[in-house]
């Protein structure tokens, strides 16, 4: 059987997303406030980092522009992932209300439907803010062609890692619909970790963030390359170029968990 075209899935995704944008626009004040508010939350986040630096010369050897590069790149990757598939977090609600059953009867892949459902542009605020911080930090990098390439691959791979984490950990809800917050420790916790240079953590934490929850590949390793710094933990230099591999592996693992979850799923009505 020929697999259906991915392009077609993307079109379906875009159509459902557009539907939800129009729905959200029915409350224009809320729509605008949501976008501004989300930009504000992340914006103030960076103000927090800046305030930290009024008391510091550097954070474990990393200056403000260097931390901004780490923060901006991770935040950008997270914003892209969250805008595209943030709704997957709500899967527990779909299971409880029986909406997942409805979705399963439709001739569109379940994951596409779940991700596009209640699509919201409110994350545009975060996207803009992250882009501004990243742009500013980039002016402090000495660019070479290979660094440009690594920077581009960092953003794409970072988004893939976050895609994987969000989808993968949302699947917890196929087994328990109660403990959704458990997943936040890994998804949003992972995102928070990437705001800081990993040098502030003990070696064991860094290893966990490399091999278990691979958020170190979202920004830490590629940024070391962009900044031309040696790894304070002495990890192999090849890791600094390995982000795409980490992105693909995380994504593949997440899709596997997703399939297992869907197979395991039994409707609440049965």
């Amino acid at each position, binding site marked *: 059987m020929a697999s259906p075209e991915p392009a077609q899935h993307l079109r379906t995704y875009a159509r459902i997303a557009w539907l939800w944008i129009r729905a959200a626009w029915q409350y224009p004040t809320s729509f605008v*406030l949501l976008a501004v508010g989300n930009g504000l939350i992340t914006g103030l986040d960076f103000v927090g980092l800046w305030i930290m630096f009024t*008391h510091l010369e550097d954070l474990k050897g990393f200056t403000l522009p260097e931390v901004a590069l780490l923060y901006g790149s991770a935040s950008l990757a997270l914003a892209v992932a969250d805008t595209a598939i943030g709704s997957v977090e709500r899967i527990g609600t779909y299971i409880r209300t029986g909406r997942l059953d409805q979705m399963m009867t439709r001739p569109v892949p379940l994951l596409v439907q779940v991700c596009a459902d209640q699509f919201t542009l409110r994350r545009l605020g975060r996207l803009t803010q992250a882009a501004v911080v990243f742009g500013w930090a980039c002016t402090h990098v000495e660019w070479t062609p290979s660094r440009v390439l690594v920077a581009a691959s960092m953003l794409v791979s970072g988004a893939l890692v976050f895609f994987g984490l969000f989808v993968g950990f949302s699947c917890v809800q196929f087994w328990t619909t109660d403990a959704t917050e458990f997943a936040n420790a890994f998804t949003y916790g992972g995102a928070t970790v990437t705001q*800081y240079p990993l040098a*502030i953590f003990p070696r064991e934490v860094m290893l966990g963030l490399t091999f278990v929850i691979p958020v170190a590949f979202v920004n830490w390793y590629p940024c070391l390359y962009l900044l031309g710094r040696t790894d304070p933990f002495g990890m192999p230099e090849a890791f600094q170029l390995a982000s795409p591999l980490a992105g693909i592996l995380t994504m593949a693992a997440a899709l596997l968990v997703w399939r297992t979850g869907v197979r395991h799923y039994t409707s609440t009505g049965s």
Partner: protein
Amino acid sequence: MLHVAVATRAFRRYSTYRAATLAGIFTNSVFGVIYSYAYMALWDANPTAGGYDQQDAVTYVWLGQALLMTIALWGGGSTDDLAERIRTGDVAIDLYRPVGLVGWYLASDLGRAAYHLVTRGFGPTVIGLVAFGIALPPSPLAAVAFAVSLVLAVVVSFAIRFLVASTAFWLLDQSGVTVMSGAFAIFFSGMMLPLVLFPGWLGTLAQALPWASYVQVPADIWLGKHTGADLAAALGFQVLWAFVLLTACQVVLRLATRKVVVQGG
């Protein structure tokens, strides 16, 4: 007596979700660990930043994680029910009950806060104590004052959330305002970074806004930073904001009631 009954039932309602509570404690603790290392790095480089030492800073982190749910920093609690009832129009039924709306929802929110305190508050505090050796209140007086301060923190937070929910009378969908107010709450409560680190006028402003009652004031009392008249002033600050904001709730409600009558024809 009625309000006590409302509060106990709210307590019980939240206690139904045990797995959710455990998952929440786990998540709060993970964030506690992350921020602890970040603050330890900061205070390693500058051991007297903001007049805190490193142990104060780490204690502050875990208190923040412990208070997160109790003060409903992200919104939520009984005011979410109110917003939904305003949107659907069910609030009309609430309004003709012979009980004040603000008191009813406040009692319910205090019940919720009590549940979150003994679970989501106690859990991370113990973990912080075992894993990071956080400081305990230096005197029984500080401990009692902390308890009082905590209740006031919930009341101030409730009043702000009530005002946010009330915007649904005019906007129908309050989610935008909720996110905005959440953004301010995270920043100005000292949840993101202790307000004592804020420089110059920003620090003065942040310490004067009602959100300072959420985390900064209770945490400073726990850490023994306020004694004598200073302690009374810190609690007075919270009482003042609680009074001003609860009055505002009553006024807004009166304005909104007229609106509902108009809507109902």
